Structure formats: structure tokens, C-alpha cells
């Protein structure tokens, strides 16, 4: 199911009452988690995950800016800033290609957020960080390599 549709569905009830219901824990977590794409998250390769998300035909774009360290100080916490300069950006997805499960998440910015996100991810070994941006029903992609090395005494 398309993420933006899911947001619209949820948005249908988006009043103060909805937020209050959320805050009070009245909405079952299952309702929110229904669209969490298990197939994509369980995929062992970026290609399979992108297929499961319907991103298979994403085209390379220079209008996506990934800011991440060339060499991570600690692979357990790698800071990643993503900005999309593509007009009409609705979501930003992240894949850490060499992780056992590359698909790391999708950030929906279609409901009034700027096309930007900062996250911190675990990167098990040196790997390209691939980003796919959805905009106007099309998909765009770029990647940046992050090196992970041994930092401390190793004991």
C-alpha cells in the first residue's frame, strides 16, 4: 500500500480528537502498524526491498543531497542528513546496502514537512547508503559510501 494513501487515511480523522485519542492510547498500535512493509523490511538485498516498495525503476538524480561521514567514528551511530531538491517530494527512503536487511526506513514528508530528514543508523560494515525519493509518482535515487573502521583498543 502506498504510504501517502496511508497518511491520507489516517489524516481523515486528523483532528484534535485524533491526537487526543493517540495520546490517550485509544488507537490500537496494530492500526498504525498495518502498512509497515514487512516484505521490504525483510528483504536481504536493496534490489528486493526496492521491488517490494515499487521503487524498482528509480532513476539516478543529482538533486538528492546525502550528508554522512566518509569514515564513521562508530558504525553503531552514523549521522545521516538527507535533503531532496526535487519538486513535489513526498517521501525519502534509506537503504544501507551491506546491512543484513538493507531497508532502513521511509520518511513521509507529503503532509507539510520540508523534504529533509536527519537520522542515525547502524552500519555494520563499509557500505553505500542509498536514498530513494518519491516525487510526483516517480522515483529518484542516489548513494553515498560510508566507511566503517575499528576505533578503539579492540579489547
Amino acid at each position, binding site marked *: 500500500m502506498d504510504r501517502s494513501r496511508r497518511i491520507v487515511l489516517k489524516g481523515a480523522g486528523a483532528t484534535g480528537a485524533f491526537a487526543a485519542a493517540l495520546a490517550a492510547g485509544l488507537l490500537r498500535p496494530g492500526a498504525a502498524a498495518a502498512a509497515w512493509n514487512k516484505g521490504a523490511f525483510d528483504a536481504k538485498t536493496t534490489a528486493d526491498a526496492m521491488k517490494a516498495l515499487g521503487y524498482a525503476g528509480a532513476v539516478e538524480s543529482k538533486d538528492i543531497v546525502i550528508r554522512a*561521514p*566518509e*569514515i564513521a*567514528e*562508530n558504525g*553503531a*551511530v552514523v*549521522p545521516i*542528513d538527507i535533503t531532496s531538491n526535487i519538486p513535489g517530494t513526498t517521501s525519502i527512503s534509506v537503504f544501507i546496502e551491506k546491512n543484513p536487511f538493507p531497508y532502513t526506513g521511509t520518511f513521509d514528508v507529503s503532509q507539510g514537512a520540508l523534504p529533509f530528514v*536527519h537520522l542515525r543508523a547502524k552500519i555494520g560494515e563499509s557500505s553505500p547508503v542509498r536514498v530513494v525519493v518519491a516525487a510526483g509518482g516517480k522515483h529518484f535515487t542516489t548513494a553515498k559510501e560510508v566507511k566503517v*573502521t*575499528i*576505533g*578503539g*583498543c*579492540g*579489547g
Partner: protein
Amino acid sequence: MTKYAFVAALAALAWTAPAPAQTTAPADPTTEEFEKFRAVMEDANPAELWEVKGEQLWKTRRGPKNASLEQCDLGLGPGVVKGAYVQLPRYFPDVGKVMDAERRIVHCMVTLQGFSFEEIAKRPFSSGNYTPDPVSIVTFVAAQSRDMKIAVPQSHPKERETWELGKAIFHYRAGPWDFSCATCHGEDGKRIRTQNLPNFTKHDQAPRSFIGWPGYRMTGGVMHSLQWRMNDCFRQQRFPEPGYASDTITALLSYMGVNSNGFVYKGPGIKR
């Protein structure tokens, strides 16, 4: 073969000794890359989660005596938290001893709240999802000295003695690997793997460690204080284990703290 025969054999091969290691560190691209992201990491530091937790623990009535820590004297008078961290370790007349921040907090937990020191000392360091209360509290206390100058006092003779003792412990070489604290932290511009090693004998470098603690450690994703940092250094030093909140640790923290005087403390940090 005698040593001299062996050295002569080496010399006969026109073998020359390697040039001594560089004394000044070259510009290090790896370190520069880490530094670029340091501000990003510090701007949103999970340590803040423990500041909040520590503040609650400070203010809540707890322990066998059902008391809060709001009457705890961290050196600036009962209940004064602001600015206390950057003036510790210091001499406390009520116990006739120099105490560091965490040791003093534990002292207050024992005297004001009735907790047992032995119980606290059984599991004093964070691991997994467990954070000992003194670690959260010292994080809160440290945050109340954010952006203040480090001013560890040296006016009482016991404070000066503690600094001297700390210096001597710092240089004490022992153990199967012949290490002292100074082995790794007594020279300029050195690294272990990619990790920089501040020279704590130098006034301009000592703050590079002191300022970052207590710190959120990315390895393991836990909050650690200077008590842990000292403990784990001795582990790496191949020594037996130092006692939690012991005189040895206070003396070392006194040495590092005084050597950092005059620098601005930035609050709880984020560490590799």
C-alpha cells in the same frame, strides 16, 4: 649469542634503526572527518534523556530514609547544584576527604537517603538497558554546569596532596604490559587505532577528555561517567580492578580536573 654479537650482526647488514616516530601529529583526515560531525552529534545528544531522569532522581523522595537529594552539599552549600560539577573534586570538611562528583552524590545517597554503599558499588556501571542511579544523577548535576568554566579548587592542602597523588598514580607503571596512564595519555598527538589520545599532562589537552564526561557512549548506547572511564582505562591497562568511588579514582580525577582548569565545560558529551 650475546646482545653485542647480535647487534654487530645487524650492523654488518648496514641495517639502520627506523627514524623515531614523529613527535607532532600530522594533519589527520580521519580525525578531521570525525570533528566535522561532532557538532551534529552534540546538538542532539541522547545524554539529555539521562539529564531528565537524573533530575527526577535528585528531586524524588527515595530510599530507606524517604528523602530527596535536595539537601545534598556538592561543595557550594546544601542543595546548590548550579556550577558544582566544574568545581569538583574538592575537599569536604564533613568527611575530611577530597571527593569527586559521583563519589559525593553516592555519599549523599548513603547519608541522606539511607542507601547502602555496598549495594550501589555492586553494579556501578551502565550496561544494556540498565543505568545505575548515580550515573543519571551525575549527568543531571553535570548539565547544571553547562557553559561554565572548570575551576577545580586547590586551596586546601588535602586538595593539593590529592593532585600530587593523582599525578603519581598517573605515572605508575605496572602490570603484565608495563602500562601506566601516561603510556597512552602522556604524549602529544598520538592515536590508538583511529582514537585520539589527549595528553593529560598538558593543560591545553587535559580538558579534551574531562569535558566530554559524563558521556553518552555510542558503543553499547549507554550513559557513562568518569568513574566508568577510569575503571575501563585500568582494564585496558591490564591492572586489577579499581574500587568504585575510591581514593585512587578521586586522585586521578583531581589531577585531570585541575589540569583542565580555565576551560569551559560544555555539558554531558557524546563519545565513540
